[in-house]
């Protein structure tokens, strides 16, 4: 497997690792963007209004469907309607399946995040004269952001891992190596493909962790550097920080 990964030809060839990595990212990214665009606003609304929680239950129930089964079902339903060259007939079922997989974690965690905003904070926002939309955007979303991120990260892990099935429908992606390796009994290729998928998922999670670190308000995450801690007399004093020795 190491040998297979170390062969530069396997990386740069047409249909090699770089090509498939790019395809894999495209499939996953498209699904995640669509799923977030759908689930985040709906989740905020449900959390804010406190109604429609059944939608979360429904979305969670959809997760119980086996991915490959749904994939084949959608393909068989769509195939008679799409003619001619091109991959649309394979892309549609793949993306639908991935989007369905990504929606529940994002939706559920967004709802939970908004619901768990301290009622006192929400009251204070209303007391300051904020309207419903303002409360959602400026108070509830920032406060719910850590949980929203946990949902998006969990969805990302699942989608990147599951985008492997794109290869089952004749598309590209890192799953190509898993399926081709298995079919041609090139087990080094198969194992390398699986390893690459896992590494990609972990890498994507790290990127999102970084994004979370810089987008979540410090007031929410409680991540203060010691110097700016409220109540620290030195940090609040006029003295330049360089002269301060802890």
């Amino acid at each position: 497997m190491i040998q297979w990964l170390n062969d530069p030809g396997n990386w740069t060839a047409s249909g090699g690792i770089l090509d498939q990595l790019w395809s894999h990212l495209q499939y996953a990214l498209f699904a995640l963007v669509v799923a977030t665009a759908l689930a985040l606003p709906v989740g905020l609304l449900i959390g804010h209004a406190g109604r429609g929680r059944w939608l979360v239950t429904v979305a969670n129930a959809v997760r119980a469907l086996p991915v490959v089964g749904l994939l084949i079902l959608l393909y068989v339903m769509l195939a008679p309607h799409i003619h001619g060259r091109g991959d649309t007939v394979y892309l549609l079922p793949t993306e639908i399946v991935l989007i369905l997989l990504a929606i529940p974690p994002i939706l559920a965690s967004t709802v939970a995040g908004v619901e768990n905003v301290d009622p006192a904070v929400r009251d204070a926002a209303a007391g300051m004269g904020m309207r419903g939309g303002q409360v959602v955007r400026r108070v509830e979303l920032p406060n719910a952001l850590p949980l929203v991120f946990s949902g998006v990260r969990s969805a990302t892990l699942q989608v990147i891992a599951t985008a492997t099935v794109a290869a089952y429908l004749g598309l590209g992606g890192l799953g190509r190596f898993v399926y081709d390796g298995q079919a041609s009994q090139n087990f080094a290729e198969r194992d390398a493909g699986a390893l690459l998928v896992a590494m990609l998922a972990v890498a994507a999670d790290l990127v999102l962790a970084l994004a979370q670190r810089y987008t979540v308000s410090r007031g929410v995450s409680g991540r203060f550097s010691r110097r700016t801690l409220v109540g620290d007399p030195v940090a609040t004093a006029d003295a330049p920080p360089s002269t301060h020795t802890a």
Partner: protein
Amino acid sequence: MKKALTSALVAVCATALAACGSSGSSGSNGLSASGGSSASGGGTTIASKLVLGGSPEFKTRTDGIPGLERVYGVTFGSYKTLDAGGPLTINALKNGQIDAGDIFTTDPSIPANGFVVLQDPKNLYAAQNVLPLINKAKASPGVTSTLKAVSDKLDTNTLAQLDVHVITDKQDPAAVAEGWLAAEGLNKTGTAAQGVSVKIGSANFQESVLLAEIYAKALQAQGASVTTRLNIGSRETYVPGLKDGSIDLIPEYSGALLVYFDPKATAVSSADVYAALQKAVPAPLTVLGQSSAQDKDAIVVTKATADKYHLVTIADLANNG
């Protein structure tokens, strides 16, 4: 309702996916379209304009893409990795995502869609004649002659038609077997296999089950007492079973069986494979007379494609078009 829903889905998502699709697909077509480039110098071949689809292993198998190039000088424009003659390949061929597919010769989709099987005069694909693999102890003259009568009547088209009944129309394999034997006059009661008890097995796919039922009904008509153990699994499971007597007889395919017993075998034509197989089969097993029915890989195109490019054999794909 369902139809409206699907077409709506198609409309909404197709545009959104178009961008993703055009670049996403490039990676999966591992073949470089060298046929159309200046390298050959002799104009463009028909094959270079076509997309071939088939199983993942077909890309690297010696009788897959490398074999097409070596034996026929045929290089397709690109290769789409789908499945081994399954629904993906058949749908893709039907709906024009691919122009040619690697499909098995007795596949029910061939008669159902009017697909054209391109002839393979150079035997790129080794012969896969249907024949009975049997424990010698049970191969009495009566059993042998009964099964030979069945094999003599069976050919590829017949088997494909019977597969349509079993696989597409979901009819009971036993009933289909009985119907065919009756139509061929092979169900006349006799005494050729009187007193023999035979345990007939089958591999775990429909055609094997159907063939096992055909053997079973034919032997029963000749007075044998028959029990069946269908859907056993792969060769690795049932060949040991044949040796230790847990089953006595199973329908087999000559080429695949030869490679199983002798991985280095090189015979490709029906006669050569059969001769080599008779030598390669280990005791206490033997093979009986083979039928002309073959279930093997084939390059299959739609009727429209065959007419447009005047395709009869695989070699025609290498012509300039």
